[in-house]
């Protein structure tokens, strides 16, 4: 599927694989693609992102907030969400640990739910969502009548998919996804 990718875009995919590997046993998610795009500082995608006020270290921190887990095995973002409805996660953790020992909640890992009728994800290098992003990057290139897939098409893919952690942290950092898409297309026209 990567035949049409430019060398730059291939490097981004390679870096996303590396990002996921460093993080542990996780398939490449849209957030890894986004962080890899940002690391390619001279690429069109990362220039557009920088112009839109996106900072790599800020996004990395936001991703960490969503994936890292605190005392309850839940992320900081979970704790914040629970606070919104009046639940103090720290108090619950403290009470449980008091009765059942340190890290009792963290170690209480629920078994993954089996979903019958849905094909099981067999753990390729890409998450289903990031695979979708890569497919969409091809579709974006076709739509724009470009023969190659560059970093900017991968970014358009992330934006078009719209529901991954990549898109979420962008939104959280105050970026309007539609506006960002327009910026990419504008930059493409200027470059043409």
């Amino acid at each position: 599927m990567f035949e049409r990718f430019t060398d730059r875009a291939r490097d981004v995919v390679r870096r996303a694989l590396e990002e996921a590997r460093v993080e542990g046993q996780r398939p490449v998610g849209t957030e890894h693609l986004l962080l890899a795009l940002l690391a390619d500082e001279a690429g069109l995608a990362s220039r557009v992102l920088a112009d839109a006020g996106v900072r790599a270290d800020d996004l990395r921190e936001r991703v960490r907030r969503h994936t890292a887990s605190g005392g309850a095995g839940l992320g900081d973002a979970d704790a914040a969400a629970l606070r919104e409805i009046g639940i103090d996660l720290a108090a619950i953790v403290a009470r449980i640990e008091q009765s059942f020992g340190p890290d009792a909640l963290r170690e209480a890992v629920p078994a993954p739910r089996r979903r019958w009728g849905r094909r099981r994800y067999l753990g390729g290098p890409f998450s289903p969502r990031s695979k979708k992003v890569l497919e969409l990057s091809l579709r974006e290139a076709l739509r724009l009548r470009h023969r190659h897939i560059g970093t900017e098409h991968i970014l358009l893919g992330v934006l078009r998919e719209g529901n991954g952690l990549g898109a979420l942290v962008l939104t959280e950092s105050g970026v309007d996804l539609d506006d960002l898409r327009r910026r990419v297309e504008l930059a493409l026209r200027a470059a043409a």
Partner: protein
Amino acid sequence: MSQATELAAAAGSTDPRVGLRAVRALRRLLERLEVVQVDNARRQGWSWQEIADTLEVSRQAVHKKHAGRPAVNSSWEA
């Protein structure tokens, strides 16, 4: 605004993202609490039937969900 009404306001936030995110976090918390409490009940010698009755689910459901887990760590003394 008192703290209680502030919390009530947040709980009633009309932004679906806020509400749904909270539901998701709550579900994660629930899953973990269930593991902690079911393990504790088993350590104290409760049968699957007793646990199921208390949770108001079927014995099969509890068993399927929790019986496969490796033996619970019983070294901790409260």
